[in-house]
């Protein structure tokens, strides 16, 4: 009899919790992920793996050291950055290991709390400037600064500032370029006002591979004559940019 009443009470509590749950989270239990509205910038360059937390060992060593204890993820949550998430079933080899999920929503704040507290040494203590999470690349065909607007949001958001950004002045405005000192935290990715962002962070190994091609594109853009540039900007780039619009509140979770 006691057990029955207990079950009843437990059931009622569970039901009320369910109701509370629906009020609390606007998306409820929907398992479907929100569809991305725009294709990511630099669609021809892959990210090349998982962007690990700052101070991570090389991929293979990191995997053998990480025990999936969840300190880094929870401390990232406690520091209010929410940048780190855990790998799911899709990548079974890396199941449960931390990675920066989507910098367009939650970039790494470089608070350097996770490497300080990793118990197995999978994340090693490093200085802010020497982190190698990845390399941010600007998509010149989408960037406001490279297409006649005055923006520079990325350089204002960057925690390392002038250390990382080079500026190229021309009659097209002040054009930002991210050099190799970039640590890949992704704050520029979040604060790019373009819908879907014009900046992308890729793994260092992939960057070494795509660097010649990317630099060639960059040099071509610098050496263009005024008329050529005008055609490229007004016929190709601006329609793309205007179709994306300015979006600050993103949801790519």
């Amino acid at each position, binding site marked *: 009899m*006691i057990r029955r009443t207990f079950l009843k009470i437990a059931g009622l509590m569970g039901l009320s919790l369910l109701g509370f*749950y629906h009020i*609390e*989270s*606007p*998306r409820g239990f929907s*398992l479907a992920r929100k569809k991305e509205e725009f294709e990511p910038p630099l669609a021809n360059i892959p990210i090349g793996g998982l962007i690990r937390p700052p101070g991570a060992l090389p991929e*293979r*060593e990191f*995997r*053998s*050291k*990480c*025990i*999936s*204890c*969840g*300190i880094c*993820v*929870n*401390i990232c*949550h*406690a520091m*209010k950055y*929410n940048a780190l*998430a*855990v*790998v*799911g*079933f*899709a990548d079974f*080899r890396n*199941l*449960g*290991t931390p990675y920066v*999920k*989507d910098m367009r*929503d*939650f970039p790494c704040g470089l608070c350097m709390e996770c490497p300080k*507290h*990793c*118990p*197995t*040494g*999978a994340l*090693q203590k490093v200085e802010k400037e020497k982190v190698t999470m990845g390399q941010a690349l600007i998509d010149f065909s989408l960037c406001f600064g490279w297409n006649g607007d005055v923006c520079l949001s990325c350089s204002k958001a960057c925690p390392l500032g002038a250390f990382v950004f080079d500026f190229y002045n021309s009659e097209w405005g002040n054009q930002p370029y991210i050099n190799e000192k970039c640590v890949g935290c992704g704050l520029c990715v979040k604060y790019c006002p373009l819908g879907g962002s014009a900046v992308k962070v890729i793994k260092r190994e992939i960057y070494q591979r795509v660097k010649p091609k990317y630099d060639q594109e960059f040099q071509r853009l610098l050496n263009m004559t005024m008329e050529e540039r005008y055609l490229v900007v007004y016929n190709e780039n601006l329609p793309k940019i205007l179709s994306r619009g300015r979006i600050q509140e993103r949801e790519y*979770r």
Partner: protein
Amino acid sequence: MKSLQVVNLKRYTLLRRIVLVLVLVLFLFQFLRIKLLIGGLSGSLLISWIKLLDPFAFVEALIASKKFTIDSLWAVIPVLLIYFIFGRAFCGWVCPMDLFFNWINRLKTSPYLEISYKIPSHTGYIVVLFFLLISFISGIPVFTNYISHLTNFFRTLTALVFLTFNFPVDFSLLLYSLFFLLFLLFLEGLFPRLWCRVLCPVGKIYGLFNKISLLHLKFQDKDCLQCASCERVCYMGVKIAERVPQGHIRSQECIFCGNCVEACGGKANLIKFKLGV
């Protein structure tokens, strides 16, 4: 006191549950951004100062990476100190699975009760070696990442809390962890305490500390009534009555649940906890 009688908890069991709930509440504080105890039971951070690392996870990560880091040693030393004092008390007092397994045990569903307790617990060391071998070959701490009940429990907890507050959650991982926990409960329903006694490598490593720990069970200088009530309440299957001539119990299976102390207390009052050499 009436509520206590309704739930029918014994004194030590109540104390154990209070400790368990306290530890879990400390872990829940991390979701309110209060950094008292962060992480999970396989690796955690106490007041953002002391790192704690499960010894089996330490060994597994060491073998998987074949490289020693001083950080992990600093993290494992406090835990080793705790187990040097309390032995395998973790399993009975802090491990959340003990509570769930007790609920399942109370339903008395198992058709293989006898068989489960006949499997000698020493076969568990084969399981330990098996997991270490897999870790060595694959270069992944396999048990702690995929199978550990502690990792899966805290993953589930984190995912559920994040889901409630609408933070990014990976549903596939949540389902994996949840189904693994359910599988463990199902296993418990068939073979009571097979996981705790034989299969769980974490408990096996802690069991080694029972041989040298300060906390142990001691028999007083009295006559044993041979009533075997202590062995009846011991759910880890320790042969207590056999050890009366030795004067103390240093069994690797003992998780200091205190059931035998209480069962004996009403009769011969022979068994006592002792903290010391």
